[in-house]
């Protein structure tokens, strides 16, 4: 059984393709959205999901979130003074999702289709595959998030002829894809995006604004305080999608402060972020060779597209209202399940094929003779696979040495659109050893193959020796060797996961603790008492009593909190 996973910046989901079509799998709390947060508890056990999200406030030093943004970098996060890479942290989330799927399906799961932002580069894709390996999952295929969304939409009417525009603004990334559908073929025509633009950036702006109204400097706020402020800011952002202005209470230095924000101010604070969305939209339309009026359907994906300013932008750019037929939070996961069905050859999908593109140009660095005097201009970018080529694709190019007797060739691989490599992103470099030859310039055939997951393979053939080598990216940030992955897998396996049966209780405790952090005075005492009462019940190990207390506390908490930060 292959599962589909949407590994999001803020929320992750797991799904499976069944006879009824794609189905979302609930987690131990009964929810389909699992917040992408990881907490290391007092007994060095890992907690993920909603409870971990609450722990961001209770114990920020032992909790991590938004680590998808770090994928492909070598930045590590300290939890309880131990360093974890973004792959490690993602693997914890994946492990939890895998466990949820196994409980739901009643069988072991070892393979998955994972969705990634279309604009994820090669390094970030490989990091995602590594994270899956660390969680004991084999990635059968990576699917681009907007493509997954389109699959879910396209499946509703397989035979329709349509041109889709998918706009996906999630927590951390922004993707745009244009798809053409005909006779059961879903063909991605163009993709563009911004890997560092998402709903969380909007929250950041509110945090900065709130800090200013509180008269604080962002750098002076301590971690747990900041997490609390962030939660308030996020809540305000969500409310602003429905209301013109919000006022929320926040405990600061043992006194209650009211933080308010109007939609207009919010839009001023984030105008440049909204403006940045225009560039990928324009590029995707241009690359597909279409004009805005030729798009049949505009589909919005990702929680952050609920923001009014984003909807308005799309309406203004395309002069019509976008569609929301499917839930923007879950549509990517549904599409990942469809792709899992495709990979496992589900008969229900026999008449559906999907082809995707690589969203950026890939090539390598070359030199050019600038005159007869043996001078060279270095740093030129030689594109090999042009952006928006349908994948899998394979292209080759013959290169030759610039000097006689040269025995080494450095192949620097870049991604980008600029004519000089200094303006593009380096995704790795290779060393090729050549035979010593003073009579001729050695020739090497370089072949790039881009597979369906958007992962690059480079093969170099030295012409003289006919020696063919599949090259492994040597010094790309975040790249791990197979041995390193196996070793880390063993290490992580030793870390205990918080027992699944316990998740509901654990989540309630962390929730109550977080509520305690934000309350004042009498309310605070009340919440403190609830917490004590619940812990008391837990100590009895009486399942019935625990469940009873839990539901009572949940009810009381709701009435206490009213319109507080926690929803």
């Amino acid at each position, binding site marked *: 059984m292959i599962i589909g996973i949407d590994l999001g910046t803020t929320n992750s989901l797991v799904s499976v393709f069944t006879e009824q079509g794609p189905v979302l799998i609930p987690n131990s709390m009964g929810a389909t959205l699992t917040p992408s947060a990881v907490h290391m508890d007092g007994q060095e056990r890992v907690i993920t999901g909603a409870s971990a999200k609450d722990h961001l406030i209770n114990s920020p030093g032992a909790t991590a979130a938004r680590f998808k943004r770090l994928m492909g970098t070598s930045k590590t996060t300290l939890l309880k003074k131990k360093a974890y890479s973004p792959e490690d942290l993602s693997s914890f989330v994946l492990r939890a999702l895998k466990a949820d799927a196994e409980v739901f399906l009643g069988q072991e799961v070892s393979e998955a289709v994972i969705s990634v932002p279309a604009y994820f580069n090669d390094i970030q894709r490989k990091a995602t595959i590594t994270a899956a390996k660390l969680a004991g999952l084999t990635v059968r295929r990576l699917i681009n998030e907007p493509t997954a969304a389109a699959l879910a939409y396209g499946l509703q009417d397989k035979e329709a002829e349509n041109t889709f525009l998918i706009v996906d603004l999630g927590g951390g990334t922004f993707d745009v894809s244009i798809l053409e559908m*005909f*006779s*059961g073929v879903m063909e991605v025509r163009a993709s563009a995006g911004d890997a560092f633009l998402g709903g969380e950036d909007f929250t950041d702006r509110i945090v900065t604004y709130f800090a200013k109204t509180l008269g604080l400097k962002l750098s002076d706020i301590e971690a747990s305080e900041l997490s609390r402020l962030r939660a308030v800011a996020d809540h305000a952002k969500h409310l602003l999608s429905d209301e013109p202005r919000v006022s929320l209470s926040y405990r600061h230095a043992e006194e209650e402060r009211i933080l308010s924000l109007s939609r207009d101010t919010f839009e001023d604070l984030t105008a440049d972020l909204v403006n940045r969305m225009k560039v990928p939209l324009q590029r995707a339309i241009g690359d597909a060779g279409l004009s*805005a009026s030729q798009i049949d359907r505009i589909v919005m994906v990702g929680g952050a597209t609920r923001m009014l300013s984003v909807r308005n932008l799309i309406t203004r*750019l395309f002069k019509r209202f976008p569609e929301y037929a499917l839930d923007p939070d879950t549509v990517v996961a549904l599409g990942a399940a469809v792709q899992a069905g495709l990979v496992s050859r589900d008969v229900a999908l*026999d008449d559906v094929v999907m082809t995707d593109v690589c969203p950026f140009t890939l090539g390598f660095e070359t030199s050019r003779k600038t005159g007869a005097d043996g001078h060279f201009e270095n740093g030129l970018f030689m594109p090999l696979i042009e952006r928006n080529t349908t994948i*899998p*694709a394979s292209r080759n190019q013959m290169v030759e040495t610039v000097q006689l007797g040269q025995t080494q060739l450095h192949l620097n691989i870049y991604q980008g659109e600029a004519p000089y490599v200094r303006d593009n992103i380096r995704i790795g470099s290779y060393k090729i050893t050549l035979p010593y030859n003073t009579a001729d310039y050695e020739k090497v055939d370089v072949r790039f193959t881009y597979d*369906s997951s958007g992962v690059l393979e480079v093969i170099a053939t030295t012409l003289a020796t006919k020696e063919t080598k599949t090259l492994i990216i040597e010094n790309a940030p975040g790249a791990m060797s197979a041995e390193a992955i196996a070793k880390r897998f063993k290490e992580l396996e030793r870390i205990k996961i918080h027992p699944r049966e316990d998740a509901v209780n654990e989540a309630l405790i962390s929730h109550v603790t977080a509520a305690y952090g934000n309350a004042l005075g009498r309310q605070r005492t009340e919440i403190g008492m609830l917490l004590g009462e619940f812990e008391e019940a837990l100590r009895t190990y009486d399942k019935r009593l625990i469940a009873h207390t839990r539901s009572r506390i949940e009810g009381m908490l709701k009435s206490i909190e009213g319109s507080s930060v926690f929803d």
Partner: protein
Amino acid sequence: MSLTDPFKVLGLSRDTATQSDVKSAYARLLKVTRPEDDRAAFMELREAFEQARRTVPVQLPIAEAPAKTSVETETGSQLLMPVRRIEWHYDDALNWNFDTSPKGKLSESVIRWMVAGGPDAATRVPAFAEARIALDKHDADAFLDQITEFIFAATDPEERRHTKPVWEPIEGTRPAWLTDDLIRALANDIGLLQVRPMNAYTARSFNTVQALFASVLDRNAAAAPVDVLEKFQHEQNEAYKDDHGSYFDRHQKAWVDLSPVGVAMADLKAAFDANADDMVETCKPILQREDIQALDEFQNLDNQLRFHIAEASGGNSGIRWPTYADWMTPDLLALLDDTFGWTRHFGNHPWERQQYDWLHRVLDRHGALSAAADRERARAREHAQAHASEPRRDARMPGILELFFARPRTLMITYYVYRVVQVIWRLAV
């Protein structure tokens, strides 16, 4: 790149395939040639699909009306409509394009007969006249237009027709082969100049030829020339009319674009030309006008501005380095670049790449390009800081010297170990 015929791969015939045939053949084959099953086969199919899609015209091939008779296949169940393509060939000596359609063939024989001085008029002219009548009305008119066109081209050896606006009349010089007799035969028997011209361009040819013929044929001497400008105006208005009331101005002899983009463009150009101190302040609100923010409008304005700047700096005249207009101030260029992101674009098609390359040179005049690059770098730095990298666990072993000197603790431990060993050594000895 495969050398196989893309149409063979798709199981289609090159001559009859349409865009939708190509698409559905691809769709059918794709379902049995899935990319995940056989990568090489898929890549071949894809290559074939892309090539075929490029070669097949979007509409039906330019063709004569299908032959009236339909051919039955062996099974007799399916009717086939053979599509005949027209072929064109160019005659160097006459500097003229001929085609193989019936009317094209007739034009060709008439033209060759004319430039030969019109021999055997007694037999040939009636034959031509008859052949003309045999064509249907549309083709017959088109045939006459072709002949008029040819004579017009022959009277204009300096090719002023390519540089002069269509509404300016061109006075023809009569070529030697155009004898009085020939003129009479063409006008009276074959019917030249008897049908009013179809469009503004043929109208100009018509006027020139009519003026030439007038001296020979008295009956045409008084005929008024066709109003070319009016025809042109009418055509322009028909072709480009929009919801904003844009129109061709007969007096200015120019298209007045009243669409939001056209108005914005005109206002921007006016601001550029005035080049006042507050030019940038004037341009900013124009660029932010609500009615040009939609994607299509915005791209349209972008295109027009790029073209205008390239034109104003000599980009379309083949010189190597831009000549800067006074209004191309650093502030203005920075504003435009901020709005359209030109420095970050490099174009998709070769011609577009060329244009961007030129534009970058213009922008670089005041280091605008470097300023934009700096901004970009600052953003990258911001990201890098946000994701500041700490050394990786498995990155590399520290060098032995680093081990000793970078970490005081190691140094201390080493020292103590040394002392202990020393003491033990002393004791032992």
